[in-house]
């Protein structure tokens, strides 16, 4: 296709977290986005969740800023209640036929006052609350919905079914937004690419009677349970039994409902997320009511993600959640009071009966029929598990060129994987449509900013309930009432979620109406939410820096959850401190500087090469730094992906593409020795193989430094030649070395060096890897005896298929516990492996020809130096710590630096590639802006106080302060301290040094800090006389 013919806009189908992320990354990278969502509001499944694992963050709090960002982005057109009918054309130019279903409410007119809903006489079951609460026929999907516009349910509405009746909403709607004559209409969209983020639906356990769902009221799904725990849910976050609204004493979670099950449903795959969400829900219960007994009945606890194993361990040891390895086949009623009876086989092989008063079914994820039909119609290949068929090497590409895919439609996955997928799809689109970047986007000038410098402070205080996160502990009414009594406070408001779209609109309105010129938001932490509120101030026409946040959630409600009175008193103090500080806040203008349009990619493994190639295709210069003499990294040791794709061929092609791309310069045998600068303008010093030094300027950095393998110290490794690590075994296997060729009996030992006290994390890819090797061995010679000794088989997602295949082939899986590892000794020419058999309940001795150890993946020790150079955190296991586990999975708090691949955490190839594309999306998004606004929180000299002593010069780590000479009015040569606005980073070391209070960092001036201090100590008794 000729470049002129390409279209610079993109269709994103599905407004869940993955689609939203793709839309935001694309819209910020220079493409216009049509975001099509079939329901009345974007957000997907996340708004229904109470909290997210493994951080236990409030789901609404973390998704709200993204919802708001999508809602107000000038280059995202959200089309709700819209479905895709057909897609025609090819990569670069598609014509999409969509159907906009009638809302019966004019979105342009609706002010979301809610009068319609309160007067609507028709109540129906609310699907957002999984039919456990009621909503009206005219409704919004959820209170924080974006767009916040009412819609009429045509099935429920009286008027739409009987034309002469009701119509109350139309009569009372203040702006006259109701339109019963609204009809669906088809539209055609022309786009250059399509991103399918079609999402999932929870499995419906009512399809069979076995679990009693739909028969007994106290059997609920995990999603229903999530709503029970949610402050916005049917019980307001109070956990009671559905049958009699009595408190719950004993809860059982049944895992793998609708997953890993070929009998009761056809979902052979593992749904990946259920183990973790069950632990999360169980922990939430235990946190609120420690006396409730919670049991999780499971097959394998699959907690392979970053920080997941610790979460599991915490649940087991600190929260006293009971874990029972057993599949429950049926739930029966017991007595008349709603109790439920479960039967299971315990660890000793005995049948046990247990009574509980609530059963939670951990339901799996599946692709809705309508989405499968759409995919089939368009011609997208699907897997037997009914997910989009993707290659591990191209994890966001469908079988059709120009149509990309992300999120749970690519196979069951959690939020970070969905977010990464969204970004990865955006990167792939950006590479395809690079020639027409910025051709269809528009930029809206911000509203004119009013000068408030001469006005007396009129402070608005917004107190957030954060659902029940704050309001459940702190008496927010009291805090708000108190805030109103503080000096200069002109307005106080309370909001359920201050970060939601409706509250943002309300804030803008109130700032304008009440002529507010300073804002305090008493909510969560400025680290995550200040950027959002700044934008709100901007759109209200006041300077974005006239804000201060009082951290009454993370640093108050959550750390004093057992002491509500104290937390309320402290919240008042924190609000008082913020009010004191904000009145000294001054308007600031960011400094705009140009961005170096190049990226430094550190690490020439698959992740680094993928990032480099994508960015080069996006038109940016890339410097790829590789410390060895060849590209490939750890993938050089891999032969196939879990689905059997050939890695060496892929690697060869990728390497050639990288080496041949004119915009990529590969620096072999090179390492980074120093780094400086900041987002948009980094300068790194590299040392090349010939010991030469070279300086590279770049706008962004991607860290893809990979990982190391664990050299086992256990299981006689290194002492018995027939005991090898899996990577070594692969090589031997490849060359059919005699030990392998003649071997009749093979034993794989899992979790070697992983999931122990020293390394409490799962290495994620070893279960799949061992099973693959085992299958290959068995296929070569079916009479071979193959044993896999495991603690938990973690073939998550569609990998479950190969686990099933292995068992069907007769590969023997034997479970062992951490406290009873297999024992190994040499016997004649063989190795004797002794392990306790949990099925036979006796020790088992296996005579093995080879023992293969699935050794752990370790963090690269070189990460420490890089982390120090770029000021990045590492987690306890030595892997790079991303900015946010859920929603910022490739970013750091340091702008302009991104991470991908094993440097972040152990993961299989396809996840490394996805993450590498996501990191490229972020770097590309940054560079596409061409210039960047530097934070104006820099040091300013107060000429009235500064006496030019120049003490600050020496302490400045950036040489940003200089003594400038000038001639005064009378021609006398004078000196004065000046600050370089670009070099200054705003650390304030000068401020801490200055003896005259002559230099201050804007936003943290000495006067402001003193004001905070005074406010903090206002309640404290003044220093007693004579007291030291």
């Amino acid at each position, binding site marked *: 296709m000729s470049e002129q013919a390409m279209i610079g806009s993109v269709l994103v189908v599905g407004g869940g977290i993955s689609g939203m992320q793709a839309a935001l990354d694309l819209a910020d990278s220079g493409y216009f986005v049509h975001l099509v969502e079939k329901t009345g509001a974007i957000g997907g499944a996340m708004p229904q969740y109470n909290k997210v694992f493994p951080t*236990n963050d409030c789901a609404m709090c973390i998704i709200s800023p993204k919802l708001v960002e999508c809602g107000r982005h000038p280059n995202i057109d959200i089309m709700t209640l819209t479905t895709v009918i057909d897609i025609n054309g090819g990569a670069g130019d598609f014509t999409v036929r969509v159907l906009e279903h009638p809302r019966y409410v004019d979105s342009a007119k609706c002010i979301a006052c809610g009068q319609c809903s309160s007067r609507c006489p028709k109540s129906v079951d609310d699907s957002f609350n999984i039919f456990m609460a009621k909503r009206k026929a005219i409704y919004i999907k959820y209170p924080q919905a974006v767009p916040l516009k009412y819609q009429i349910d045509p099935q429920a509405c009286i008027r739409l079914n009987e034309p002469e009746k009701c119509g109350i909403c139309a009569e009372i709607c203040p702006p006259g937004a109701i339109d019963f004559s609204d009809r669906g209409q088809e539209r055609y969209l022309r786009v250059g690419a399509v991103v399918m983020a079609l999402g999932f639906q929870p499995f419906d356990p009512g399809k069979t009677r076995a679990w009693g769902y739909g028969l007994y009221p106290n059997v609920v799904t995990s999603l229903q349970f999530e709503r029970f725990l949610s402050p916005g849910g049917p019980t307001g976050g109070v956990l009671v039994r559905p049958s009699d609204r009595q408190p719950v004493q004993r809860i059982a979670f049944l895992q793998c409902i609708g997953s890993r099950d070929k009998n009761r449903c056809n979902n052979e795959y593992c749904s990946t997320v259920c183990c973790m969400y069950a632990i999360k829900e169980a922990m939430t219960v235990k*946190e609120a009511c420690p006396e409730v007994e919670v049991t999780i009945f499971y097959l394998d606890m699959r907690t392979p993600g970053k920080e997941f194993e610790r979460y599991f361990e915490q649940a087991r040891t600190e929260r006293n959640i009971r874990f029972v390895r057993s599949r429950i086949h049926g739930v029966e009623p017991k007595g008349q009071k709603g109790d439920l009876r479960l039967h299971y086989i315990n660890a000793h092989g005995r049948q046990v009966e247990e009574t509980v008063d609530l059963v939670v079914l951990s339901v799996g994820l599946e692709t809705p029929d309508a989405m499968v039909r759409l995919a089939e119609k368009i011609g997208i290949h699907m897997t037997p598990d009914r997910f989009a068929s993707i290659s591990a090497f191209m994890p966001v590409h469908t079988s059709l060129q120009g149509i990309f895919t992300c999120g749970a439609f690519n196979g069951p996955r959690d939020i970070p994987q969905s977010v990464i997928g969204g970004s990865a799809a955006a990167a792939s689109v950006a590479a395809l449509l690079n020639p027409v970047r910025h051709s269809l986007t528009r930029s809206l000038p911000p509203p004119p900013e009013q000068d408030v410098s001469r006005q007396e402070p009129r402070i608005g205080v917004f107190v957030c309930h954060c659902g029940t996160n704050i309001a459940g502990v702190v008496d927010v009414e009291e805090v708000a009432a108190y805030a109103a009594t503080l000096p200069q406070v002109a307005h106080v408001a309370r909001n359920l979620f201050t970060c939601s779209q409706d509250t943002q609109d309300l804030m803008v309105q109130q700032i304008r109406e009440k002529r507010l010129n300073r804002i305090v938001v008493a909510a969560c932490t400025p680290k995550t939410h200040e950027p959002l509120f700044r934008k709100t101030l901007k759109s209200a026409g006041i300077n974005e820096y006239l804000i201060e946040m009082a*951290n009454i959630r993370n640093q108050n409600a959550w750390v004093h959850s057992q002491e509500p009175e104290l937390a309320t008193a402290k919240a008042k103090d924190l609000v008082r401190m913020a009010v004191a500080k904000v009145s000294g806040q001054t308007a600031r203008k960011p400094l705009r500087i140009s961005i170096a349009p190049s990226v430094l990619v550190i690490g020439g493994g698959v992740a680094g090469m993928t990032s480099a190639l994508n960015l080069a295709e996006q038109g940016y210069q890339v410097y790829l730094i590789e410390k060895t003499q060849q590209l490939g990294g750890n993938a050089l040791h891999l032969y196939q992906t879990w689905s059997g794709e050939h890695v060496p061929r892929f690697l060869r092609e990728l390497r050639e593409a990288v080496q041949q791309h004119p915009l990529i310069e590969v620096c072999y045998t090179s390492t980074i020795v120093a780094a400086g600068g900041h987002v948009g303008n980094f300068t790194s010093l590299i040392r090349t193989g010939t010991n030469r030094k070279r300086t590279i300027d770049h706008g962004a950095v991607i860290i893809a430094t990979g990982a190391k393998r664990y050299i086992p110290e256990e299981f006689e490794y290194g002492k018995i030649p027939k005991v090898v690590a899996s990577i070594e075994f692969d090589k031997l296997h490849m060359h059919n070395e005699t030990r392998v060729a003649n071997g009749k009996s093979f034993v794989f030992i899992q979790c070697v060096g992983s999931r122990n006290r020293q390394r409490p994390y799962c290495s994620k890819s070893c279960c799949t890897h061992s099973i693959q090797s085992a299958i290959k061995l068995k296929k070569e010679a079916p009479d071979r005896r193959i044993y896999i000794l495991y603690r938990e088989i973690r073939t998550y997602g569609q990998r479950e298929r190969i686990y099933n295949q292995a068992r069907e082939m007769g590969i023997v899986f034997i479970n062992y516990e951490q406290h009873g590892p297999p024992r190994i000794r040499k016997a004649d020419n063989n190795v004797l492996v002794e392990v306790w058999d949990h099925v036979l309940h006796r020790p088992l001795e296996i005579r093995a020809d080879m023992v293969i150890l699935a050794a752990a993946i370790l963090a690269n020790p070189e990460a420490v130096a890089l982390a120090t150079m770029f000021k990045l955190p590492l987690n306890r296991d030595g892997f790079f710590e991303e900015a946010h586990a859920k929603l910022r999975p490739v970013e750091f708090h340091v702008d302009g630096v991104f991470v991908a691949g094993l440097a972040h955490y152990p993961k299989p190839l396809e996840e490394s590639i996805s993450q590498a594309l996501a990191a490229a999306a972020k770097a590309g998004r940054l560079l596409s802006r061409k210039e960047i606004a530097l934070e104006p929180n820099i040091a300013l000299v107060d000429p009235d106080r500064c006496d030019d002593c120049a003490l600050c010069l020496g302490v400045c780590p950036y040489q940003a302060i200089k003594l400038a000479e000038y001639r005064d009015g009378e021609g006398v040569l004078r000196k004065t301290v000046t600050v370089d606005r670009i070099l200054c980073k705003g650390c304030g070391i000068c401020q801490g040094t200055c003896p005259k209070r002559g230099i201050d960092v804007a936003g943290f001036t000495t006067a402001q800090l003193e004001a905070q201090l005074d406010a903090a100590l206002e309640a*404290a008794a003044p220093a007693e006389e004579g007291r030291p």
Partner: protein
Amino acid sequence: MKKEPIIIAFCCNWCSYAAADLAGISRLQYPGSIRIIRVMCSGMVHPDLVLQALNKGADGVIVVGCHLGECHYLKGNEMALARAEIIADTLEDLGIAAERFQLVWVSSSEPERLVAAFRAMSERLRAGRTPEIEAKEAGQ
């Protein structure tokens, strides 16, 4: 019972303030009389500010920065360390108990360490540190 000692904690934006947020996410609990003031860097805290806090009624002041070598601004925490010695000397000169000021290093992933420092200081200040004892100490 003596009320909880009031402690002003100057937390740097990059490590300790983030650790304080993480303490919340991890639901760690600590005494409610600690007031965190966010600063960009531990090196931003002027010794005068520490003395002011103690004079104006704080029982203790704790400055929390990134671990040495991990400062977001290269050497801000080294400056804080150098100043801590000056502050300690000044406190001695003024007859103020040394326990009332402390400098602590905490990384953004160490909420437990931060909370332990908060608790320890609170307990130390509470344990027997009645004004009488302090007055007596000062008299010596």
